[in-house]
């Protein structure tokens, strides 16, 4: 237990210091959202209708692109070998690393959402709904993306290939995240059904992600 909490604290500290790059995710999120009005035009009514979709796409891309180096840096300096050889089960260590990554890179996205909601002409309720769905949905993105990060480190390939492999897996999260936010803004659906499915997706990926990542690391590293 202490080993896992030490791992989480270490990862967060590395991510927040110089060279960590956790906050670049927020900057990327901001840039993607700012690009959108240039693509669709400065029509506030249209932007507020597309708002949840834009925020969700931005958060999806930001959280997947920052995941690229989840295991890579540890592999380069050798600490990944220590983690694989330690007596803590690798699945738990993977889950701890993903949790640390979500705390350092996922939570800032949610904190930034209200500001970006202002830019997209979303009212208080809509912004709150998007932030709440992001809070429930981004863990699923992190834990699914971790599989891609583990494959990236075992194959020495990152970037585009991993995005191509992992993005189709995140379609359900996108569907239910946007559906729950839209349910609050325009109706006619209730908020509860898609939101609970979103939570269920997060829980499923919480189980599947660490096992798949650990299997890929165990079989792939040599």
């Amino acid at each position, binding site marked *: 237990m202490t080993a896992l909490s030490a791992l989480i604290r270490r990862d967060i500290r590395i991510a927040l210091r110089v060279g960590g790059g956790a906050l670049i995710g927020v900057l990327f999120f901001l840039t993607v959202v700012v690009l959108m009005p240039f693509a669709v035009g400065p029509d506030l009514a249209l932007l507020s209708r597309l708002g949840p979709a834009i925020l969700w796409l931005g958060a999806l891309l930001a959280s997947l692109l920052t995941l690229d180096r989840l295991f890579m840096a540890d592999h380069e300096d050798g600490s990944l070998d220590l983690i694989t050889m330690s007596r803590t089960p690798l699945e738990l260590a993977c889950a701890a690393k993903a949790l640390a990554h979500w705390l350092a890179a996922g939570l800032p996205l949610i904190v930034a959402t209200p500001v970006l909601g202002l830019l997209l002409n979303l009212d208080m309720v809509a912004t709150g709904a998007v932030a709440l769905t992001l809070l429930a949905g981004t863990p699923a993105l992190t834990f699914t993306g971790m599989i891609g990060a583990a494959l990236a480190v075992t194959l020495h390939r990152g970037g585009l290939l991993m995005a191509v492999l992992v993005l189709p*897996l995140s379609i359900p999260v996108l569907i239910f995240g946007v*559906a729950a936010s839209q349910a609050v803004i325009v109706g006619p659906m209730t908020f509860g059904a898609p939101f609970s499915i979103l939570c269920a997706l997060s829980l499923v990926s919480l189980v599947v992600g660490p096992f798949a990542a650990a*299997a890929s690391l165990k*079989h792939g590293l040599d």
Partner: protein
Amino acid sequence: MTLIDLANPTRFLALTARVLPWLAAATVILLTIGLYQSALAPDDYQQGATVKIMFIHVPNAWLSMFVWGVMSIASLGTLVWRHPLADVAAKAAAPIGAAFTFLALLTGSLWGRPMWGTYWEWDARLTSVLILFLMYLGLMALWRAVDDPSRAARAAAVLTLVGAINLPIIKFSVDWWNTLHQPASVMRMGGSSLDKSFLIPLLVMAVAFTLLFVTLHLAAMRNEILRRRVRSLQMMQASRVAFSSEMGTGSREETASKGAA
């Protein structure tokens, strides 16, 4: 004859060399019967002659999912039992599965044009088959991105199994998304209320396409085994050439130094 006897690639090659002609012949005969029967099948009272696209479209769609199932079993073979031919099977199945998925999409959109008035409709089934196609392409890209086959095999196996868990979830969520956005405006086949005059040709075609897949898969596996042998022979030759040239320069240097002395 058990699965473990096939672990020897030479024995696998010998066995498939004997089985393949029979399989190919059975495929051709069944395909001929199936196509003949589908040509004779009556026109639908609503859809007219276009209903005959179904006899090609449905077997392709069924195989697009069946092949992922075969790849998942092969991936279990790679990760759990370490069967030496499992990764060959998984690698050979991916392009064939992608081809079946592509044909299902193509015939589906050709069928959709006269029926729905458009080539592409964001219908739930079409969308989930499109995502399946993207995942096949991703897997093939993964196989091509890594030059060491055993390393690529384990990564692809993990991804195939994750996909096998995720595909039903994706299917379910796309269904949900579709009902949310466009309430049942799309007409669809009458499900199990299919008439016998359609059902029998369809079943024959399904069996024929499955046999076609087995034939193509075994042939592709043979090719893959032979390709790996050629590759390792080339590597051996290259290292022999490099080694002998190294020896050659070494001895020449020796004589040169001797001459200098």
